[in-house]
């Protein structure tokens, strides 16, 4: 995936670029609105990450101008201003999503992927009603979960959690990402609710529970 990063704070740009490069994505970085407009129109990017506070042309104006030139590239706004009015304003000028700083890196990756999926119309995961993974099977229509063909009773949150693991098999999921996906929380409520639920889920799915591994200081992954 090709990403254009528009960010005037070099140290922020630096860790974002390294983090995304580690996921195998290529990142071009510019630090002014003027450069952003030039780059975005001359190169085809999959996603644009746009800081709102820029010297010269402001992020919002960059966004407005890109949309006026009918650039359809998904835009994710990044900003240290997090009031709800800012968010509404950002989406009004044509941004597709909005992430306040500081953010969890996993969350940034998830948002970029979601924007890319939406833009390319690729949503195979969402259309599949029956998921299987190892000895686990999950029926989205009947909400039935089976392990080795035996039905397992799960609560709604446990089901959501299992579904998240099954659709992200082999990928690391941070606690924040899980919290956001299952509980709809953007902020950390300083609880260990994720660990508690992962523990419960592991016990309920028996031998398959071992496939959910804890990665020290990072999160969980279903192998």
């Amino acid at each position, binding site marked *: 995936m090709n990403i254009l990063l528009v960010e005037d704070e070099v140290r*922020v740009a630096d860790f974002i670029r390294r983090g995304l490069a580690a996921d195998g994505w290529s990142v071009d970085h510019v630090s002014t609105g003027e450069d952003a407009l030039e780059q975005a129109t001359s190169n085809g990017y999959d996603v644009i990450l746009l800081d709102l506070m820029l010297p010269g042309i402001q992020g919002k104006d960059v966004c407005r101008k890109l949309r006026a030139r009918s650039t359809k590239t998904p835009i994710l706004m990044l900003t240290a201003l997090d009031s709800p009015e800012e968010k509404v304003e950002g989406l009004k000028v044509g941004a597709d999503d909005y992430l306040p700083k500081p953010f969890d890196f996993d969350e940034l990756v998830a948002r970029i992927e979601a924007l890319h999926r939406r833009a390319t119309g690729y949503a195979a995961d969402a259309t599949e009603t029956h998921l299987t993974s190892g000895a686990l099977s999950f029926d989205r229509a009947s909400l039935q979960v089976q392990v080795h063909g035996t039905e397992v009773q799960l609560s709604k949150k446990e089901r959501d959690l299992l579904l998240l693991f099954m659709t992200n098999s082999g990928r690391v999921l941070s606690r924040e990402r899980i919290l956001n996906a299952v509980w709809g929380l953007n902020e950390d*409520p300083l609880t260990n609710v994720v660990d508690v639920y992962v523990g419960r889920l592991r016990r309920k799915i028996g031998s398959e529970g071992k496939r959910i591994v804890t990665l020290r200081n990072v999160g969980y992954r279903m192998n």
Partner: protein
Amino acid sequence: MVAARTSELQQLIRRLERGEENRKQLMADISHELRTPLAIILGEADVTLRTGGTLGDDVSDSLARIRDSAKHTNQIVDDMLTVARYEAGQLRLDRKQTDLRKVIHDAVAMFPGPVQIACPDAPAPALIDEVRLRQSVLALLQNARRYGGPTISVILDDRTDAQVITVEDDGPGLSAAEKSQAFDRFFRGSNASGQGSEGSGLGLPVVKSIVEAHAGSVALQDRAEGGLQVVLTLPKVPRVKIVADIDGRKTA
């Protein structure tokens, strides 16, 4: 003479008002200026943890502590902003008709420990900001766990004039002096010493700001059997007068 005095007083009031405005602006500016360095600290630690597959446990744990402390600091900034916005009259609420029972159940579902819930069987609709109110109930549950006793309950009482949410525990409670200071920023009670590493000292001020923005109030009471009760009172919005329409049916 009187005119001169009046003008002096008016100037003084203006100066005080300006001072207050400046203080609030300063708080918002500080909060905002802190977010970029926090983003860098958090991002650096996070990216290194994600990409450094060969980190030793010591290094990994150290980076995780850096990341978690940056998050904690950010939480304090968020809380300060909430309080500052409320005091400046700028705390915007996204109010929608919501069943308070759902707010309570959602907050409890996010809380890792056991909580007893006492809710009426009938829905308790209220015009509230669901996310903010849920945040408040969760903050009270966390306070109860951190500073209170092991038995925590949430009680919803749907009265004719108001809806009352009470969070109580069976811990040591608070002295009268502590109760009067509990809403001060960064105040911590005597039983908070040494164990408050994850709190912000802004839990109750944030809850107060959110509840008062809903035109409600927060009170601290002793529980009869020992422990603390935190009582959130949300007055019911004056009902639209019931009028009979032409057919004689009653409509709101």
